[in-house]
C-alpha cells in the first residue's frame, strides 16, 4: 500500500477506535505508531521517536501554561472564589434567561484574553464554571457545550500562540494580526451570547433563572470578588504591559489565587491536596491527548496526505472565492481529526502561496491577515464540531454525568453561530481589516 493510501485509511481507523471507546489520546497514539510502522517498513522510526518525543512533549515550555492555569483554577474553585465570581455574575445577569451561561462565555472571553490556548481556556473555565452552572439548574449538555464553545475564544482573542506561528509562516506583522483578531473575537463572544438567548427560549427547562436582585445587593456581590479581579487584572495587565510572558503570567496567577485562598483561610493542607489531585488528572488527560496528536500528525506528514489534499483542492481551476471556501471547508473537516497548531504548520505553507496568487481585490498584507483570521476561526470551529472535537472531549470528561450525545446536541447551536460568523467575515473582509 502506498503511504498516501495509508494516510487516508488512517482517518476511518482512528474514528473507529474512538467510537469503540478507546481513550482519545491512546487512539491517536496507536494510529500514529501503527502508521509509522507500516509507512517506514519497520519499528526503527517510531521506536526512536518514542525515546525523546514523549519527554520533549511533556517538557514543552508553551504547554507548561496548562498545569499552571489548571492549578490556578483549582485554587479558585476550592477556595470558593469561583462561587463569589458567579454570585456576582448571578446578581447582575442571573435574572435574565440564560444569564449564567452568558456570564460563563464572558468569563471565557476574559480568560482567553490572557491565555494563548483554547484547550487551556476550556479546561480552566470548566473547572470554575461547570459546577456552578449545574448548581443553577443548567442541563449537562447545555453547560458543557457553552464552555466548549467559550473555550475557542482562547485562541481567537489575542495573545494567541497560533497567530504568532501563522505570522512567522507567512512573514506578516504579529501586532497587526493581533489587532485584526479583536473584532472577530468580540463578534464570537456576542454570537455565543445570542445563541444562548435563543437556546433558552427554545428549551426553557434546560436553564435555571433567579430573581432580580436590588442594586445594593449587586454592588455588594461585586465588592466580594475584588481579590479575584485584582489577580485577573494583574495577569491580564502584566502580560499586556510586558511584565511577563503568558506562561509566566500563569505562574503569577496561580501564586496570586493561592495567596488569596491562604489569607482568606480557605486553603488548608486538605484543600491543597485535593487541588493537586484535580490538577493532576486534568493535566494527565490533556497531555496524553497532546502526545497522541503529536505522533499521529508526524505520521500524517510523512504520508504527504495534507500536501496531496491541498494540492488537489488548488488544482481544480476554480474561482478565487470558490477556492477560499473549499480551503475553509477542508480545514473544518481536518479539524475533526487534528489539533489546530499541527494543521497550521502542515498546510499554511502550501495554501498561503496559492491564496497569494489569487485576486481578491486587496493588498498582499490585507489578504494574508484576512486569510489568517479566517483559517484561525475555522480551525477553532473544528475543536467543537461533533463527532470529534478536542474541546468537546475535554469538557465532557470533566462532567461524568453528562453523556457525550447531550453535549453534541447542544453544541450544534454554537456551531451554527460560528457558521453565521464565518459567512459574515468572509463576505465583509473590512470587518477584520478595519483595526490594522
Amino acid at each position: 500500500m502506498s503511504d498516501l493510501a495509508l494516510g487516508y485509511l488512517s482517518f476511518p481507523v482512528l474514528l473507529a477506535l474512538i467510537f469503540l471507546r478507546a481513550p482519545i489520546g491512546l487512539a491517536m497514539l496507536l494510529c500514529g505508531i501503527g502508521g509509522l510502522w507500516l509507512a517506514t517498513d519497520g519499528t526503527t522510526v517510531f521506536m526512536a521517536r518514542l525515546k525523546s518525543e514523549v519527554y520533549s512533549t511533556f517538557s514543552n515550555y508553551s504547554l507548561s501554561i496548562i498545569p499552571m492555569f489548571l492549578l490556578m483554577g483549582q485554587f479558585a474553585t476550592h477556595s470558593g472564589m469561583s462561587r463569589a465570581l458567579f454570585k456576582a455574575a448571578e446578581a447582575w445577569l442571573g435574572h435574565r434567561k440564560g444569564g449564567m451561561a452568558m456570564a460563563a462565555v464572558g468569563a471565557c472571553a476574559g480568560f482567553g484574553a490572557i491565555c494563548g490556548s483554547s484547550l487551556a481556556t476550556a479546561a480552566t473555565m470548566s473547572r470554575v464554571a461547570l459546577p456552578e452552572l449545574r448548581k443553577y439548574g443548567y442541563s449537562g449538555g447545555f453547560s458543557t457545550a457553552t464552555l466548549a464553545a467559550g473555550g475557542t475564544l482562547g485562541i481567537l482573542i489575542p495573545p494567541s500562540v497560533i497567530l504568532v506561528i501563522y505570522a512567522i509562516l507567512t512573514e506578516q506583522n504579529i501586532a497587526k494580526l493581533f489587532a485584526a483578531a479583536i473584532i472577530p473575537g468580540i463578534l464570537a463572544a456576542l454570537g455565543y451570547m445570542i445563541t444562548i438567548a435563543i437556546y433558552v427560549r427554545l428549551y426553557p427547562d434546560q436553564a435555571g433563572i433567579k430573581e432580580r436582585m436590588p442594586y445594593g445587593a449587586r454592588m455588594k456581590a461585586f465588592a466580594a470578588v475584588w481579590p479575584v479581579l485584582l489577580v485577573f487584572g494583574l495577569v491580564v495587565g502584566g502580560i499586556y504591559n510586558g511584565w511577563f510572558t503568558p506562561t509566566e503570567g500563569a505562574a503569577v496567577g496561580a501564586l496570586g489565587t493561592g495567596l488569596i485562598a491562604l489569607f482568606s483561610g480557605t486553603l488548608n493542607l486538605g484543600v491543597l491536596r485535593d487541588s493537586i489531585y484535580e490538577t493532576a488528572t486534568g493535566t494527565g488527560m490533556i497531555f496524553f491527548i497532546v502526545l497522541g496528536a503529536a505522533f499521529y500528525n508526524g505520521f500524517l506528514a510523512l504520508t504527504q496526505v495534507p500536501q496531496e489534499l491541498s494540492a488537489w483542492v488548488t488544482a481544480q481551476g476554480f474561482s478565487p472565492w470558490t477556492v477560499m471556501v473549499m480551503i475553509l471547508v477542508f480545514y473544518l473537516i481536518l479539524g475533526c481529526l487534528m489539533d489546530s497548531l499541527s494543521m497550521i504548520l502542515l498546510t499554511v505553507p502550501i495554501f498561503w502561496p496559492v491564496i497569494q496568487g489569487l485576486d481578491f481585490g486587496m493588498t498582499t498584507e490585507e489578504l494574508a491577515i484576512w486569510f489568517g483570521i479566517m483559517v484561525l476561526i475555522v480551525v477553532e470551529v473544528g475543536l467543537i464540531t461533533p463527532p470529534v472535537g478536542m474541546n468537546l472531549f475535554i469538557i465532557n470528561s470533566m462532567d461524568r454525568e453528562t453523556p457525550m450525545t447531550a453535549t453534541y446536541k447542544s453544541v450544534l447551536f454554537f456551531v451554527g453561530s460560528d457558521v453565521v460568523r464565518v459567512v459574515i467575515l468572509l463576505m465583509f473582509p473590512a470587518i477584520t481589516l478595519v483595526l490594522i
Partner: protein
Amino acid sequence: MLHKLIEKLAQGMALLGGIVLCALVLMVCVSVAGRELADASHGGWLGGVGDWLLGLGVGPILGDFELVEAGMAFTIFAFLPLTQLSGAHAKVDVFTSGMRPGLNRALGTFWSLVMAVIIVLITWRLYAGLQDKLRYGETTYLIQFPIWWAYAASLFAAIVAAVVSLYCAAMRLTGQRET
C-alpha cells in the same frame, strides 16, 4: 489491601508532581519579580533603593525557563499514575452508550490492556532515551545541568505509571475492579 497500596502510590506520585509544580510556580514568580525589580532599578525609578537592590544582585533567575521545562516533564509523568487509576482519560461514548453492558465492559478491559502495554513501551523507550542523554553528556543551555537528571526523574515517575496501569489492566481482566 493491594488496592490501598496502589492508590497511595498514585496519590503520592501526584503529590510529588504537585510539589514540583508549586515550586516551579514560585520560582517563576521570583524570577519575574527579580527581572522587573532590576529593570526598575536600572531605570532609576527606585532611586537609592534601586542601587541597593542592584548591589544585592537582584535579577531574574538564570535558566528559569529550562528549569520549568525539566521540572514540568517530571510533573506530567508524575501525574500519569493518578490519571490512569482514576480513569480520567477522555473517551467518546456516542455509539457505545446503547450497547450491552457486558460488551462495554469487554471493550473497557481491552483498552485498559492496550493502555498498559503502551505505557510500558513509553517507559522502556524513556529508559533508552536516558541512556542516550547519559552517553552524549547533553546539558541544558544556561545552567548546564545534565539533561539525564530530568530523564531519570521522569523515568522514576513513568515506572510508577507503568505499575499502576498494569494493576488497572489486571484488575479489569480478573473482574475484580473497574479502574
